[in-house]
């Protein structure tokens, strides 16, 4: 099945989501091409034996509509049947625009898919991972938005072997481009993640979480509730609308474990949960559950590690 992967550049190379989708495409042995979107000059994204185009966008102009138009035309001209991309901000916009051009509704939050007899069947996770939802795409084109960490990434050596496509500006300028400082271990690739929830009571109590994270060389995450409350930047949110993590150890501190949070962390290898409420749903997926006050347990961990 002729497949197009829409990739993204991150830190001047292919994003982890793109590498994961490439991993799946390689496993399926399907014929595919790659169109990668980014704003940096000369990223190192080329991979031997994969045909790739680099859409170099202007970071200071809102160009996503024009990029989508280019890709829609490419899909029609080249009779692409399957389009795969990560569920990121940029790709969600692009796939949504393309779906209108092709009159084919996309499937969001896909965790796996298969191709048989020329049709695509997708798998979604619902009810916080308790059930899976299978559907079949019946349109000429299938558009899939894939959740992060769904597949094992491809291992690749990068070169600068790709064609560059320029994009026309729209009349909407972008200004004050701000890049958040990233210090210490990052959520997506840290072996240990410590997350905080409402049970931490107050923003100031996050210092004890940070102290523990330093000791364990862990990344720090949080629930949507505390991100909305302004305790942490959105980039640290774990869950349905935030990041998906699969560390070796996940320590949930004062997190009740709403299904939206579980979607982002339930596949962690070992889950430790600390919560006052014995009935908290987080305990259903915890390998080790401590029924107690996070605010008294964590300082003791800090003293003794």
């Amino acid at each position: 099945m002729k497949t197009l992967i829409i990739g993204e550049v991150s830190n001047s190379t292919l994003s982890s989501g793109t590498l994961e989708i490439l991993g799946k495409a390689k496993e399926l042995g399907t014929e595919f091409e790659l169109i990668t979107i980014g704003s940096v000059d000369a990223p190192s994204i080329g991979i031997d034996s994969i045909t790739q185009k680099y859409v170099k966008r202007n970071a200071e102009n809102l160009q996503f509509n024009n990029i989508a138009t280019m890709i829609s035309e490419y899909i029609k001209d080249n009779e692409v049947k399957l389009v795969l991309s990560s569920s990121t901000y940029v790709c969600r916009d692009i796939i949504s625009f393309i779906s209108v051009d092709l009159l084919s509704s996309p499937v969001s939050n896909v965790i796996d898919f298969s191709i048989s007899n020329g049709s695509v069947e997708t798998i979604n996770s619902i009810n916080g991972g308790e059930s899976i939802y299978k559907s079949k795409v019946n349109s000429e084109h299938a558009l899939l938005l894939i959740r992060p960490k769904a597949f094992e990434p491809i291992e690749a050596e990068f070169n600068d072997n790709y064609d560059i496509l320029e994009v026309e500006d729209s009349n909407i300028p972008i200004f004050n481009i701000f890049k958040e400082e990233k210090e210490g271990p990052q959520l997506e690739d840290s072996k240990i993640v410590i997350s905080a929830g409402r049970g931490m009571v107050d923003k100031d109590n996050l210092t004890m979480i940070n102290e523990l994270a330093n000791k364990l060389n862990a990344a720090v995450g949080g629930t949507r509730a505390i991100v909305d409350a302004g305790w942490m930047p959105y980039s640290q949110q774990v869950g349905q609308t935030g990041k998906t993590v699969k560390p070796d150890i996940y320590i949930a501190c004062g997190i009740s474990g709403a299904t939206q949070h579980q979607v982002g962390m339930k596949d962690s290898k070992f889950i430790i949960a600390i919560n006052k409420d014995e009935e908290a749903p987080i305990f259903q997926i915890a390998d080790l559950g401590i029924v107690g006050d996070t605010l008294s347990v964590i300082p003791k961990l800090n003293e003794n590690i």
Partner: protein
Amino acid sequence: MILMKIAVCAKQIPDPANTMEYSEGTLNRPDEQVLDDTDRYGIEIALQLKEKFDAEVTIISMGPEGTQKGLQQALQMGADKAYFVDDPSLKGANSLMTANVLSQLALKSEADIVIFGTESTDGYSGTVPQQVSRFLNLDCISYVKGIEINDEVKLTRQTIEGSENINLPEKCVISVTAGGVEPRYPNFKDIMAAKSKPVEKIDLATLELTAEQNLEFVTIENVESSKAGEKVVDEGEAFNKIIEKLKELKAI
């Protein structure tokens, strides 16, 4: 000054406190549904614009009408009127069909600015705002997490690396992330006033629709869950249990 027209999408959803149940692949919707909290942020932004500029705010909605509780909650916040579509043929509508219907309602309201939450709490497709913008041939400013309203309106967009600013164009679609603004609570007067605001059911047959159902439900399967492990009640020493485990896992 010309009246600014704003349409805000508001979805009625089953109370998120209850477990979601499905039949034939479609979410069961009780008669009484509530306003999706995600939409309160978009409504708040519309109302802030209305306070600064002279604006008319129309709620647009699709889905089973039921008791209209969710629509009332949207009007109670301060929107002026509501248009909704409720048609049995839309049961299990995909995101594209939904966007198609909502874009037609936005046209009907003659909106310059169309505002959405980023994704509904019950569906989570996260594509409808962008699809509506494409149907309407408007620019889409997605993932807005902040707004500064002066003579110009400055939007702050969430990006993967941080944030960026865009001035609100005269016509566009925006999607708003949770937490971007503080949604207001209606008082008793607002609640009473909402009852007399116009709520109009729009006949699906009067809309120009091109999207069709291309996604076929196959099955829902339960995954083996409940890997619940050891549970210890803390009596002051439970931290030792964690340290033991961390040692075993070679984390320390």
